[in-house]
Structures are given as C-alpha cells and as structure tokens.
C-alpha cells in the first residue's frame, strides 16, 4: 500500500461519531483507519471511511469521538476494509463487538484474515436446506421446524423469555440421534444488558459446550457504532467454520432491534433522508446482508443456521424492524405476552409463527409421515379456537354451540400440553406428534379437514 505509514495530523470536523479529514491522498471507500491522540491519554480508536470526496474523507469512529480534537489526532489509513483474523482456535474465545479478544487469552494466531462485510453467496452454489435440527421443543419441532441452514428469528417483546428459549434451543439442539457431527455455537450480543450476556455464558458453561462457543459481546454501554459490525464479524467467523472447517454452526444474534436502532442513529447523524419511522431507506438491504449469510453450500459439509432475536417495539409486529426481518428470514417464531401472562413457557403463539423450510425437512424420510398433516390440522383448529373465544367473549361461554365448546377445551389443552413444557424438557418428535394426536382426539373426526383419510385411520 502506497500510503501505509503516512500519518495525517488533525481533523477538519467532528460531529458525533463522524469525523472529517481533509487533504488525504489515496484513501479508499470503506477502508479502515486508525486514529490516535497525542495527548497524555493516548486514546486509540478505529474508524471506517463512509464517504469520500476528492481529498476529503468522512470517517465513522467505532468507539465514538470522545477525546478527539481537531489538532491532537493522528490518522493512519490501513489500506483494507475491516478484517477479522481467523483460525480454528477462535472456538471457546470471547471477543468485543469488532472482533478484538477480551478474554485476556491474547491475540488469535490467524490462519487467514477475512473482510467482515463478506460477499453474497452465489445462488447456484447453495444447496436447498432439508435436514431438520431437533430442538426438543414441541411448538418448534412440531409446528415450526428448524432446518439446518435456515434463518429463523424469534420475535419477542421486552420482558418475554426469549433468552431462556434461545438458551434451551442451544442446550437441546441436536442434529438427530445418530449424528456425530459437531455443532458450534456463535453468540453475538448487540447492545444487550450485562446480565443477559452473563446468563448465556453461564448456560453454555453449565451445559459443557463452552469450548464450542465463540462469543462476540457489544453490551448496552459499549459504543453504538461498534454494534453495526458485530453481527458481520460473528457471521464472518460462522462462514469460516461452516464452509471451510465443515462445522454445523448455530448463530444466535441478539438483539437485532439494537442493531437497527444503531443504524437509525448513525444515519440521522449523517443527515440522510429517512424512510419509515426514521430508519434509513437501506434498512432492508442492510438486514438482508446479515440474514442472507446463512445456508448450506455445495462443496462443504457444514452449515450456518441463524436464530436472530429481536424485541418488537411495543409488541408491534408491523414495526419496520420485525416487518423487514420477516420478509427476509425463512419464517419466524413469535412470542406472546398473553400466553406468558398465563405462565405458559415457552409462550410461543403458533398462529403467526412459521417455518418456510419446514415442508421439505419433515415427513416420512425425516420425521414421520403424518407430520405435515398434523401440523396443518393443529394450526387450522387452533385458528378456530380464536374465533370461538371471540364469540364467547360476546355471548358468553354458556351460549356457545357444542362444537364451539369443544374448541374452547381443545384450545386450553393445546396451550397447556402441547405448547407448554419444562425448561429442561427435551421431547422427541414422535412424542410431540403423539401429543398432537391426543389433542386432535378431543375434536370430532369430521372436524379434521386437513388430514388425509388414510392418516386419520392410521393414527386417530
């Protein structure tokens, strides 16, 4: 690099996390810069060029611009975009939001370095995901089956047990009983509370998987701009482990809402034209570059499965963050406050929940021949429960027709026996399906309009 080592002294402007510098030569768009102050604090910071006009560069500082002044700052251009050093030794390690080790175990001896922005996967090199991951949770395995290589977010709200659910998935996730392939967990925290990060760490420790976990922590009091790269660094590590080291990688990203909030903050400080609710127009593209980094490719045995967690502001599923997420991800698991209020754990509202890849990963060859039919019937019958309840709230339960009354009973039982389970209860798929049939037994046979007559004869 021709300008490596050249240091520019001073800045022309500082505004929030954005600084501008004049008179630079040969700086490239998206390049990483190192900034250092020459005062007694000797503050060191990293930044990224986000706009460049002739010799004027606008730099976004990851750690915020505190302590920088227009005269005390030495800026050096690195000549490359943000990179993350990779080797198999990252397993068991903990990093900060931009990929620097914070566990005191020293730097990573890198086998290679990768641009954290990644590159789009070529659709012809992808393999369509078909193998399911058993989570041991009935509402997921039975109705919104998680598939290897899928991106399946949890839509939650503040105060709902999404963390416990994610931890349970991590603990119980299994690639099937006879599989000896190893599962690696990558945990990326963006703007979460210290307790939450600690809870996950403890969970990993207790279940003895800590040396198969890579953690990236950007906590609530860490710099906001850093958050924008945390998921990218984590997914760079995931892609490396999956596609080069043949691991099955489960990526937990929490909380995507903080990520989007950080984008809005930075966008407005850049003076960009906002679209909905003040979020920048490229929120969709930006979320997509994260979520699309999941999947299976043709020449590798590994897979990247994503479980992003997001808290819906005001429990509103039409808010831009859950809305755009739902358009990109392959389904969603939606948690519900009313169910949580009835102490049902996990409080999964199955009706808006969905797994788009489920249809190809279940059935005779994978789980059992009646799986899809049972799932459809449970969905459809439970939708009717909602109608019966609405009616009951108007005319009173006593006035309901006998069939509606049966639906009310079915609804209660479905929530208490199928959805609800213990936090350490690991149900296999057959048990889940059998519970489903027991519940369907509560309804008259002719109400089962989504199941083939042959299957009804076999299992009813």
């Amino acid at each position, binding site marked *: 690099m021709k300008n490596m080592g050249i240091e520019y002294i001073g800045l022309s402007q500082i505004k929030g996390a954005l600084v501008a510098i004049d008179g630079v030569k040969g700086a490239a768009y998206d390049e990483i810069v190192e900034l250092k102050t020459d005062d007694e604090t000797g503050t060191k910071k990293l930044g990224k060029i986000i706009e460049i006009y002739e010799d004027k560069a606008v730099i976004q500082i990851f750690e915020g611009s505190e302590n920088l002044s227009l005269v005390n700052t030495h800026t050096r251009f690195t000549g490359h*975009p943000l990179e993350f050093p990779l080797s198999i030794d990252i397993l068991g390690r903990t990093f900060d939001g931009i990929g620097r080790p914070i566990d005191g175990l020293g730097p990573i001896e890198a086998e290679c370095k990768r641009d954290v922005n990644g590159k789009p996967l070529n659709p012809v090199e992808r393999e369509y995901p078909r193998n399911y991951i058993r989570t041991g949770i009935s509402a997921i395995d039975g109705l919104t089956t998680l598939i290897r290589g899928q991106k399946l977010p949890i839509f939650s709200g503040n105060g709902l047990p999404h963390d416990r659910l994610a931890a349970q998935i991590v603990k119980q996730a299994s690639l099937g009983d006879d599989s000896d392939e190893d599962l690696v967990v990558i945990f990326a925290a963006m703007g979460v509370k210290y307790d939450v990060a600690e809870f996950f760490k403890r969970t990993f420790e207790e279940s003895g998987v800590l040396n198969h976990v890579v953690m990236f922590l950007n906590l609530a009091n860490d710099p906001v701009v850093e958050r924008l790269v945390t998921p990218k660094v984590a997914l760079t590590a995931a892609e490396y482990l999956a596609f080069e080291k043949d691991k099955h990688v489960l990526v937990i990203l929490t909380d995507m809402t903080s990520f989007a909030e950080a984008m809005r903050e930075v966008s407005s400080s850049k003076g960009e034209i906002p679209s909905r609710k003040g979020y920048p*127009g490229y929120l969709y593209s930006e979320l997509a570059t994260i979520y699309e980094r999941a999947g299976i490719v043709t020449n590798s045995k590994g897979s990247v499965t994503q479980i992003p967690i997001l808290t819906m502001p005001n429990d509103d599923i039409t808010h831009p963050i859950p809305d755009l997420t739902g358009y990109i991800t392959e389904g969603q698991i939606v948690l519900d406050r009313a169910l949580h209020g009835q102490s049902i754990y996990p409080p999964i509202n199955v009706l808006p929940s969905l797994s788009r890849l489920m249809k190809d990963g279940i059935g005779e060859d994978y789980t059992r021949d009646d799986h899809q039919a049972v799932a459809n019937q449970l969905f459809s019958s439970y939708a009717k429960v909602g109608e019966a309840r609405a009616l009951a709230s108007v005319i009173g339960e006593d006035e309901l027709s006998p069939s509606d009354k049966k639906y009310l009973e079915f609804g209660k039982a479905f929530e208490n026996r199928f959805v609800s389970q213990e936090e350490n209860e690991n149900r296999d798929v057959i048990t889940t399906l059998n519970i489903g049939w027991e519940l369907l037994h509560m309804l008259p046979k002719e109400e089962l309009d989504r199941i083939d007559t042959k299957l009804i004869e076999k299992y009813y």
Partner: protein
Amino acid sequence: MNETYTGAIYGINGPVVYIKGKTKFKMGEMVFVGEERLVGEIISLTSEITTVQVYEETSGLKPGDLVYSSGSAIFVTLAPGIIDNIFDGIERPLKSIAEQSGIYISRGISVDSLDTEKKWNTHILLEEGQEVLGGTIIAEVQETKAVLHKSMVPPYISGKVISVKPDGDYTINDTIAVIKQENGGEYNLTLSQKWPIRVPRPFNKKHPSSVPLVTGQRILDTLFPIAKGGTAAIPGGFGTGKTMSQHQIAKWSDADIIIYIGCGERGNEMTEVLEDFSKLKDPKSGNPLMYRTTLIANTSNMPVAAREASIYTGITLAEYYRDMGYHVAIMADSTSRWAEALRELSGRLEEMPAEEGFPAYLASKLSAFYERAGYVDNLNNTEGSVSIIGAVSPQGGDFSEPVTQNTKRFVRCFWGLDKSLAYARHFPAIHWLTSYSEYLNDMAPWYDENVGPDFIPYRNQILAILNQESSLIEIVKLIGSDVLPDDQKLTLEIARVIRLGFLQQNAFHKDDTCVSLEKQLLMMKTILYLNERAKALIALNMPMSVLKESTIFDKIIAIKYDVPNDHLELFDNYITDIDNFYNEVLQKNG
C-alpha cells in the same frame, strides 16, 4: 468501435460515484469503474458533476480512479442459451461466475452473458435476394427440448440478403447471412442481437386480450382470471404465500416461456426454484420445467443497483421471446424490493422524497414497467404476449402504502393475500373479497366457447355465496350461529364447502396442485347442485341439523383429493350421491 474516453472519480457514497467536471459520457451509458472494472451506469449529468450508479460493491474505490466508457447503454445479449439458465440482475450467468469465483460472488468479474463457443445446430430460413425487415425470422435453433429459438433481424434493420450460409452448426457470433441495407451499407446477421434494457422492443399493434393465462389454480382461473398479456399484482405481508403463489403459477401456467425474477428476495428460494424446476415435469410436454424457464436472481444481499436493473433485464428477455410468437409470463418477486432499490438510490442522490421516502417518480416507473406487458402483433406478423405477475410486499401488510397503491392503479388483476387466512393455513391465502379481475368480461366468450356456457354463471354464483357468507359472519360474530334461520345456515355450510373444497388448494398434493378448467367446472357444478338440492330440502322445512347428519358435505369437500385429474367421469357418482342424500333425508323425515 466507439471512441473510448474516461473520467476520474471525485467522490464515492455507497453505490453512487461522482465524476467532477464536464464529461463526454452519455445519459444511461454503461461504464466500467476503477481498476476492477465494476459495471456501472450514468444516471445524471450536469456541467459540474456526472453521477454513476455502480452495480457492484464499491468498497476499495478511491478518488482519482478512472471510469471507462463503453459507448452503449446498458443492454442484454439476446440469443440461444437464455432458457434453462440463471443470471444475475445484469445478465451475467451465475454458473460462469461460480466457476471463476467459487461459492461467493466476487466483484469485477467479466463473463459473457451467453456461451459464445457453443455451436448450435441451426436451420436457416433465408434465401439470397430475399427482402428482410426488422423482426423477420432468419433461423431456428432447438434451444431446449421445449423451446424452438427463432433468431430474428434486429428491429429497425432491413435490406436485401446478399449472401447466406447453409444449415449447420454455428456459434451465436458467427455470421449466417449478410444483407445490404438501403443506405448501401452491409450488415452481418448472427444468431444474436443486443438490446438496451430500458427501451421497450417495438411491435406492430397491441390489442386487448381475450384468452386467459390458465394457471391450474382454482381461485385464479375461476374467480379472478388473468389474460395472456395481462398484468396482476399479488400483495401480501410476510408468510402469506406470495412466493408460493408465484412458484405455482410459474410451474403450472400454460405460458410457453417463464421468466422468474427473484428481485431482492432470498437466496434459498432461488436455489429451490432451480432444484425443483429441474426435477418437475411439464404436464403437457413431459419436459423438465427448467426447459422453458429463465431465472434472474438478484437476491437481497446482492448489490442494490443491480436489483433495480434486474426487472428491466427480465422484461427485455420476455419481449424478445414474445417477438418470436411465444406467450411469456414474468414472475417479478418482488416489485417492492425494486421500489426500495429506487428509494435507496434516490436517497443517495439526495432527491426530494415523496411518500414514505419513495421518490416522486415511483408511480411513473411502475406504470412504464407494467405497460410493457401486452398481447401484441409482432413486427413479423406473429402474435405473442407478455404477462406480468408482480408480487408486492407491503410494509406491515398494510395495502395503503405507496407501492401497493400505485401498483393497483396500473394492474388489472389484484390478488390480495390475507394474513388471517394464512394463519389458519388456508392456502392459497388469496382473499375472495378484496381481490378482483377486470379481464373477466373480455374473456367470457372464450370461457363460453372453450370450457362451457355454464362456467361464468357458476363462477358468479360461487362468488355470490361467498359474499353472503361474509355478511352472515358479521351476525354470527355477534350472536352465534344457532339463531340463524335454516336457509342461512345452509349458506354458511355451502360457503364452507366452497372454501375448503374449492378455494383451498394443496400445492403438495399430486392431483390438487394443478387442476384443469374442466375439473374446476365440474367441481363448481357439483357444489352448486348440492346447494340446490339442500335448498329444496330446507324449503320442505327440513332443519339444517338433519341435513348435517349426512356426510355428503365432507364428501364433496374431499373431491379435490378423491377424483384424480384423469378420471373426471367419477363426478357422475357424486351427482347420484347427492340425489340419494336428498331422497334419504326426505324418506326418513318426510
């Protein structure tokens, strides 16, 4: 060749690059940016600043890097090899990209749009001395088992053939004939031609279409049919089945060619189409569906500017096959992502936003796109059509947002997807009360003649029952269904039969996934016959509770599974069953 010229980059902001000073670039010209020669397009020119939108990631570009001219507007290559292929948004074949750069798509890859080395077995239709015009078919190539490719004289070119090659194997760039133009110049005809993507290809005359695009999907063909050359929009929130509906139409519609544009959608979905369509067989010809399909994949994580272009690339390919006399259907999934790409670029250019940040020209761009559909007389006097089926992904599932509203103004078929139907797993989740088709009247004569004079009256009766149901449901919600009079209870029951037995269609069932118009007619007939007989019983004061003791209603619902598509004679048994039901009820309670 055009003179090449360059400009030096002044500024970079995301996918937008600026060049300072007055340049020789032309508006809409394709350019190559930087050392890596990233593909870009000139989108505005002033005497101070030239603006380029770049179709690839711009990180690493520096002020001072050069921008090179190409001399022509952004174009696609049109020749054999398009079908059974998958391209990115600017017609670069993804398979060739994979050969060069592995599982990821790298930047600045230079590949030919189509294989220039492959020799195609060509049958040449020209004779020396023949006068040819733009559009004249000059040669035929069996492109895939299902598609006979007809190479044509490019539009606006004409003259007299002065030499012609014999039938044989030619590459797409070999000269197969030479013509002398009126101005005296010679022009070499090859199997290929180039066409700028933003310019509609010319035709002689557009006329209203009276032939439906038969999709095999009952709710579409019967209730809200689309014409060949028509336009339709499928709006719906996430999870309501937009993509699934598009896949079903791409699989089973009776178009000759399918162009599937994955615009800003999921990578796995494109992989699924690619895998499925290679395996699935066209019910008519027995060929794999890929043999009539072209995929354009610009997934959501691929560069946003190329996403904007992908829609135009797709429609230009479609028009090219239309010019050969084919009926082409385009699936654009999803036009909202395309509109968002416009918004994103408009934001980068700091243009004044209109509603929700979308640029003010959103409506005119949408209308210009949908107007490229149509049933036309081609330059070579064949007839062809381009039908557009655009998915719309309204934010929050709210149909009042700008993309849905503007799309509604320019399409004549509206298939509104409904969240509550999707939650109850009623698929296709197209809601019969919000959807409409303006083509129905134009096509009524076709249905009368080709399916049967009863089809349209039956269709209207079915829709009327569904509408009655919806007003009855309002009452039921307030006071329960027990208090309704028996004839209204029957309406609810028949509506249930229609919803479950007719509207709901199982895409994963081998018989139910695609249903002929004939079977659709017989299903309607059977349901309406049941309605008629049951009504007669109610008129004789038989209570609905007695009628419901019979299993006949559920039996009719199961017709879609129980009557295979090639055994339509079984419908006679159902008519007998309904008569028996009528007589039994009468005997027992009469």
